[in-house]
């Protein structure tokens, strides 16, 4: 399948000692409801190499959204360690995490999460504002990011003047504008019809083909099918991991449950 080719190609190019984009070890996360402890994650290990396209799947309550929030540095694990692009982020304070979110992570949400009173261009610019990029440079980079998702002509439109698919493309441009190491998408097609979903996935695939590491959460098998690797959650654990890139370091250092090595085709 063509699906595995880019990542294999990537893998061939990268140095074997290079650390993965994501290295998560023994991640657990508990929520506290009064005095009851609700474990959302129970010891998750996961490595994601640069250039991978990973779909996180699982029923609701399986912990995939919690895991996504932890990957996105929106939350901190109860225990476990997280190396993002080689940087240990699990011990960082909130300001450092803000910088990590700003510079290393691009996050796309199910409900787009654009600021309604701002134009598409302003929305895309916003992360650069918090990086302290000068205005002219911001404009240039935001316009470029918009053109990458094919929305150059809609730069001055507000979200209400755009279709759902267009809004999600603006959100993708916003996630890309800081040239992040990791692109996270939490059910990016959940609010879109199947045709528009297909467009969004195609964009993600193209970005991935250019080397961007993409992790997305989805319920829909149709969407997950486009990813090279499917990771399935249940009850706070990874129960299935299909299509991971074989990697010496990964294999030796982090033992993982790999129930089925079959190809989905």
């Amino acid at each position: 399948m063509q699906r595995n080719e880019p990542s294999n190609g990537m893998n061939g190019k990268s140095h074997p000692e290079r650390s993965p984009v994501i290295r998560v070890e023994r991640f657990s996360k508990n929520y506290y409801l009064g005095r009851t402890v609700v474990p959302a994650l129970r010891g998750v290990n996961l490595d994601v190499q640069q250039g991978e396209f990973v779909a996180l799947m699982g029923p609701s309550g399986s912990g995939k959204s919690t895991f996504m929030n932890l990957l996105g540095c929106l939350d901190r694990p109860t225990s476990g360690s997280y190396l993002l692009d080689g940087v240990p982020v699990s011990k960082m304070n909130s300001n450092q995490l803000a910088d990590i979110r700003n510079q290393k992570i691009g996050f796309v949400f199910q409900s787009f999460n654009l600021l309604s009173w701002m134009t598409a261009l302003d929305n895309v610019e916003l992360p650069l504002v918090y990086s302290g990029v000068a205005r002219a440079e911001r404009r240039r980079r935001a316009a470029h990011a918009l053109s990458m998702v094919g929305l150059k002509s809609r730069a001055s439109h507000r979200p209400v003047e755009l279709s759902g698919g267009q809004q999600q493309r603006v959100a993708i441009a916003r996630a890309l504008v800081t040239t992040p190491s990791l692109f996270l998408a939490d059910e990016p097609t959940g609010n879109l019809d199947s045709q528009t979903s297909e467009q969004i996935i195609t964009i993600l695939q193209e970005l991935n083909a250019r080397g961007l590491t993409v992790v997305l959460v989805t319920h829909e098998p149709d969407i997950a099918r486009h990813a090279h690797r499917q990771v399935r959650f249940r009850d706070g654990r990874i129960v299935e991991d299909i299509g991971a890139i074989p990697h010496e370091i990964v294999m030796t250092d982090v033992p993982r449950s790999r129930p089925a090595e079959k190809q989905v085709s």
Partner: protein
Amino acid sequence: MKIMRDERERTVQPLPPSSKPVAKRRPQQHRRAHGFQGMFQSTGSALQALRANLLRSLLTSLGIIIGVGAVIIMIAISEGNTSSINSRLSTLNPLQLTIRSGSTSTGGVRGGAGTLQSLTQADADALGQLQHVSAVSPTLNANGQIVYSNQNWSSSVQGVYPGYQQIGSWQLQEGNFFTQADEQSGTTVAVLGQTVVDNLFTPPGIDPIGQQIRIGTVTFTVVGTLASKGSTGFGSNADDIVYIPFSTAQQRLSGSQFVSSIVLTADNSGDVNSVQSAAQALLEQRHNISNPASDDFTIQNASQVLSTVQATAQSLTILLVGVAAVSLIVGGIGIMNIMLVSVTERTREIGIRIAIGARQRDVLAQFLIEAFVLSALGGIVGLIIGPIGAFAIAHANGYPLVIDPLSILIAFGVSALVGIVFGFYPAQRAARMNPIEALRTE
């Protein structure tokens, strides 16, 4: 997707691993170098947010507008008042001493000054013999209805010596003050204050000099009218007065042996105090009083009056400014209230901002600036409205318009400060939001 392909060369190329850290480190430096950039942006988004809720912003600012306006108006009123009092007191003869009868004390109940009749014309004449006394006059008050033709007016009628013109610093508008001869023979002549003239001789155009007026049952001839001293504020009016010879008042209107007060002037300011103690000693001797504590009269000098009135004006100022300051604080609480609502309403926006990399400080700054802009805009409008209101009030009350630039500065500074102080708690609440929960809200 066609566009994407066109752009392919310039977009996220599979970067060689070595170049990546460089690309990542650069924004970090930007972030430090352009601290003001974020501030600028925060101001922009604050203005956008305020414009989005224009009516609410206006209503919130209203508290500050009123507060700042009130501070300026209140300060202007009290300044105007003080300067009006000062100009009034400057027409008052600073060399003047006023002696009033002491208070009665009947079974422990003390009446006001003057309730005890103790001063006589003879006392006044004796005081006139003291050294450094340039003029003296007893006064006898006889309020009464003054009638001219078919007009009438109720005013204060005082019997005084001709020398009173000098003591009271009165200028004549027309005619003359009555003379020593009038005093000696008790002629029925009168000198009218401007207010009395205005109210009695209507329609204007009648020359009051030589006209016959009636006070009570006695007919008087008008020999002079006094130049106006202007309103004193506080409701009293120096121009609402009629002067007649003392002897005439005593014989024709009052019949009393006693006088209401004795006024005298020292011949220069250095002698006021020595004249005061000499007058006290003389009166004690004449009234057979050995203990000054049981004096049956009080002596008041003009400089005491001056300081009393100024102290009163001062406490009025404090009161007014205090009230205005309270309204500023109330305005601040309004801002805090609205900012809390705004933070709650915009939870999702805050979540988005935090998710894409806003630090706590960035969110704090955004909402602080919003509160600051809200109160500073209110302050600016207050700065416009305040002086207009002050002008209107000054105009209506005949005060001079006095606007202290310092009061404007203080009012604006305080309003800006109010925004920051009362905006801090809501802003902090926004900054400390949990992004996951914030993004979950609708």
